[in-house]
């Protein structure tokens, strides 16, 4: 089956952040500490893609735009991709690949604890994004599992907040956006339960 043009376009656009970083390294455009820039930028894009996946349902329902649903998996997988790169580069260059150092950091630094937890939650979500597995799991179980994205997003924002030295403006902006997106779920659940009551 041919792949839709719109999906190819989204795939290409979603690669732009990492393409910019690769270009930026060789063109010396990432400032005096390019590694810090790269690790931070990858993390931010991971968080942004996570938030984008959370935008799909509200837009689809409230914006009456059902065709948006087909893009959510790709956005989710890109979130995983960016988070995976963020974590891998951190382990390789900051910890020189040492697993014992990684364990030490996970245990001792609370911002890394929650970041790692967020990543771990995303792993089964990424694995179960394959059509065959969705069919085998069935819609109900798959939906329940993928509610884990709510927890992962909260942990990701907390990771960012606890990592920021003094200026918490950016993490707080992401927190506000996440609060709205999660607030939508709370509202939707409440509205649904009200509908059930009146029937």
């Amino acid at each position, binding site marked *: 089956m041919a792949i839709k043009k719109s999906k190819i376009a989204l795939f290409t656009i979603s690669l732009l952040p990492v393409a910019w970083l690769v270009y930026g390294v060789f063109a*010396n455009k990432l400032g*005096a*500490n390019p*590694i810090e820039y790269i690790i931070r930028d990858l993390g931010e894009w991971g968080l942004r893609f996570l938030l984008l996946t959370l935008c799909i349902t509200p837009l689809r329902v409230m914006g009456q735009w059902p065709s948006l649903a087909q893009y959510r998996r790709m956005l989710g997988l890109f979130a995983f991709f960016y988070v995976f790169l963020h974590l891998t580069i951190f382990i390789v260059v900051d910890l020189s690949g040492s697993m014992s150092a990684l364990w030490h950091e996970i245990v*001792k*630094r*609370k*911002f890394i604890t929650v970041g790692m937890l967020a990543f771990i939650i995303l792993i089964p979500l990424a694995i179960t994004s394959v059509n065959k597995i969705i069919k085998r799991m069935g819609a109900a179980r798959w939906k329940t599992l993928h509610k884990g994205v709510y927890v992962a997003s909260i942990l990701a924002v907390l990771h960012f907040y606890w990592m920021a030295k*003094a200026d918490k403006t950016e993490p707080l902006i992401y927190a506000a956006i996440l609060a709205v997106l999660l607030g939508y779920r709370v509202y939707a659940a409440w509205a649904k339960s009200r509908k059930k009551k009146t029937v």
Partner: protein
Amino acid sequence: MITKDTITPKEIYLKRRELMQAAGVGIAASMLPTLPAYAADDAEKLTPKESITTYNNFYEFGTAKDEPAINAKNFVTKPWEIDVGGLCERPQKISFDEFFAPFKKEERVYRLRCVEGWSMVIPWTGVNLYDLLSRFKITGDAKYVAFETLHDPERMPGQKSNVLQWPYREGLRIDEAMHPLTFMATGLYGEDLPPQNGAPMRLVVPWKYGFKSIKSITKITFTDKQPETSWNLSNPQEYGFYSNVNPNIDHPRWSQATERRLGEIFKRDTEMFNGYGDQVASLYKDMDLAKNF
């Protein structure tokens, strides 16, 4: 896999540098003028001027690293006056030119280690603080020297935000202030300090975390009380008065055992007192450095 235990950090650094050069990645031209007596280490490469002047923590001009270079472009530092007072015989308001007039400026190459976990090697120009302060005849009861940065939100727009309490404050114990390493810098790479680096004069205390090297100083006070310091006011659990570089004492939220030397890929081990232990360890001989962090 190459692990830190099997090869020394310097070997990894040189190997990676070779690999990167072979791959054709541009590396900023190294500048290796003859290093004077205070040189950190003959093998330590100076951080390129471009990095030193575009990667700054100077919240008076914005909290992102690249903001001070942009926002401080038109910061006027002439005329500049320093208010020197407190426990001394000759308190006075003195102009920048008079302050430095009697002294010959010299170059010192020092490591600068930021509390965030990165470091640079910087060729400063300036004068030993001990020499600069001697004319004020500090009295015997003075135990500390307190410093303040300019407080003027019109000229330093970052001061309109309350990310820190303004003016920026710092302080040293009197023996730290009088130590031969403690330096008042007026230039770097042989030129006047760019505004983003703390023009026209900033402290350099190389064995402490960089935030103690207070910039754009307008007030110096000799006191018998431990001075307030801005980062300690901001978060006393995270930033102490002494803030000596110490790989054994972690920041509450991150490790201090390693640092990224700008220009290098892999992190290197942080050294006690930023490698100046031979010269400063005696100042803290009987102190519990975990309590007095």
